[in-house]
């Protein structure tokens, strides 16, 4: 069962990659690099390298916005998770529901609402990168919340308490006990927030501007214009980029240390040595 399924998955990806290297998929399979050149051309200009390919503008904007949004998304998500699991306050259930609500609303509704809300003073940010970042943070926060809640409910509350009775303040406790144990949740939130920001279409389709176009919207535009090869080449590049970024985030957050968690606190079965 696993092997055909694996082959199928590989085939789907291979098809995308291959389609980027032929003239017109489905009609003319002459190998070509033309799509990549159009999208990602780099020239040696008078003042150094010039990124003259048509995709660079939206790619840089997307990467920048996703990179800004991801840490905020993870941070706000984890903070919310902390409030939900470690604190008790009135209206907690409603608060929890509220944090998950943005997941349930269709992206286009969110996008249009953002335009309507932020097109007029006092907060006039339609057309800026800010509106994209904010939209991503709130749209993707539920994943940070869920990952954080799952991780924090696994961390026994007595760990916090032990830290407190040993004289550590709340901040020290969070820094030295909670955060190291939350690494997996931080990783998941960062990766997810980044990937979702890179690939979102529905919520941002109304929010992009000439200056801050998003990769996905650009791709949709190419498809609209009948330039399928270009769209596919760009998509392939995005897949590779995200693979690299996920690996880098993993290394930066320290995935290797995750193996240390687990079996602590079990019942005693071995005798203790006389001491």
């Amino acid at each position: 069962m696993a092997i055909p399924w694996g082959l199928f998955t590989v085939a789907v990806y291979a098809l995308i990659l291959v389609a980027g290297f032929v003239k017109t998929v489905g009609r003319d399979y002459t190998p070509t690099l033309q799509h990549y050149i159009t999208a990602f051309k780099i020239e040696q200009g008078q003042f150094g390298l010039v990124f003259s390919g048509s995709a660079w503008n939206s790619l840089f904007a997307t990467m920048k916005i996703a990179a800004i949004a991801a840490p905020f998304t993870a941070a706000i998500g984890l903070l919310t998770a902390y409030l939900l699991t470690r604190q008790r306050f009135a209206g907690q259930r409603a608060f929890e529901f509220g944090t998950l609500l943005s997941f349930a609303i269709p992206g286009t509704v969110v996008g249009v609402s953002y335009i309507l809300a932020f097109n007029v003073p006092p907060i006039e940010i339609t057309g800026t990168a800010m509106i994209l970042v904010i939209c991503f943070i709130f749209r993707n926060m539920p994943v940070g919340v869920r990952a954080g809640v799952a991780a924090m409910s696994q961390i026994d509350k007595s760990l916090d308490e032990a830290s407190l009775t040993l004289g550590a303040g709340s901040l020290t406790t969070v820094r030295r006990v909670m955060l190291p144990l939350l690494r997996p949740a931080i990783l998941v939130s960062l990766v997810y927030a980044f990937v979702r920001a890179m690939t979102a279409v529905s919520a941002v389709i109304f929010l992009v501007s000439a200056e801050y176009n998003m990769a996905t919207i650009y791709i949709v535009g190419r498809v609209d214009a009948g330039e399928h090869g270009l769209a596919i080449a760009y998509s392939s590049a995005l897949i590779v980029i995200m693979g690299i970024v996920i690996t880098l985030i993993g290394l930066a957050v320290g995935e290797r240390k995750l193996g240390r968690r687990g079996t602590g606190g079990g019942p005693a079965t071995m005798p203790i040595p006389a001491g």
Partner: protein
Amino acid sequence: MAKQPASVEFRNVTKRYGGVVAVDDVSFTIAPATLVTLLGPSGCGKTTSLRMIAGLETASDGRIIIGDKDVTNLSAADRDVSMVFQSYALFPHMSVLDNAAYGPSVQGATKARAREMAMDKLTMLGLAGMEHRFPSELSGGQQQRVALARALVLEPQVLLFDEPLSNLDAKLRRRVREEIRDLQLRLNLTVAYVTHDQEEALAVSDKVIVMSNARIAQVGAPHELYEEPASLFVADFIGDSNLIEAEVVSVTTGFAKVRVGEAMLDLPSSNGRTGKATLVVRPTAARIYCKKPAEPHVRGKVAKVAYLGKHMEYTVETDVGEVFLVEDVRPDPWRKNEDVYVAFNPLKVKILQE
């Protein structure tokens, strides 16, 4: 030890969670350098009381005094109290050494100094050589020693234990509780110890505070609780006992004449009054006879016999209800369904009157 052990005092402490009263107007004092147990069934408020000493819960009313300092409104981090948690609460991402060094290092000691202090206590608890392991690589007993070392490193004025033996197997329990008691005596520590196991409480404590339904049922040394229970709850909760309905017929100075079934007992009693009473008969306070004995007795029939190696346990069905008895092992034990007489030892039977 550089620091003096401190006393702990509760003055009319109450803890409410919403409408639920977890601890109701409780006052007690733990003398310096003694081991005091908070004992009671689950939900009696003993753990909440312990957590209020630690500062992990805030008292709704009343004062908590440690040493001569009112700590009622101090946070856990600002109290000179350490706690050994039921789950040990070791930091899974830190080595044994870093766990033990956590206290001094968060309080500003240099890394080298913190590790030196930690190593000192780890060595004392026989954990030298394991300092670079992680908690998940230790047995339960070892994990507990690490938790204890971590709590001791700061040489706290008061050391708290929350059900420290509940995660250990039966054989280990006795040894660990003896070690805790030894350590407390050797280091001259003030210890508050929560347990629901009355045998454990009797074995380790200088004083036991029995709690029931958010209030203190009785405070006393282990032998006082066992021999002079103040209420039916304590009589029933501490040790095995037969609670037998009886009637006080007459009272003279220092004695009460009590009717139990067809037996008349002369029991020592300082404050008895005539009327209904309950007799507390410990399993060793009565004996079984095959022939009618001279002492006051009731008739019965042996209902259950159990051989436990070091002693025999019998349950005798009598006119006044089932009586549970412990006797020495004999070559010819009582047999099931044998008709017998149960005679009470008047010096060991207590009268309780509500």
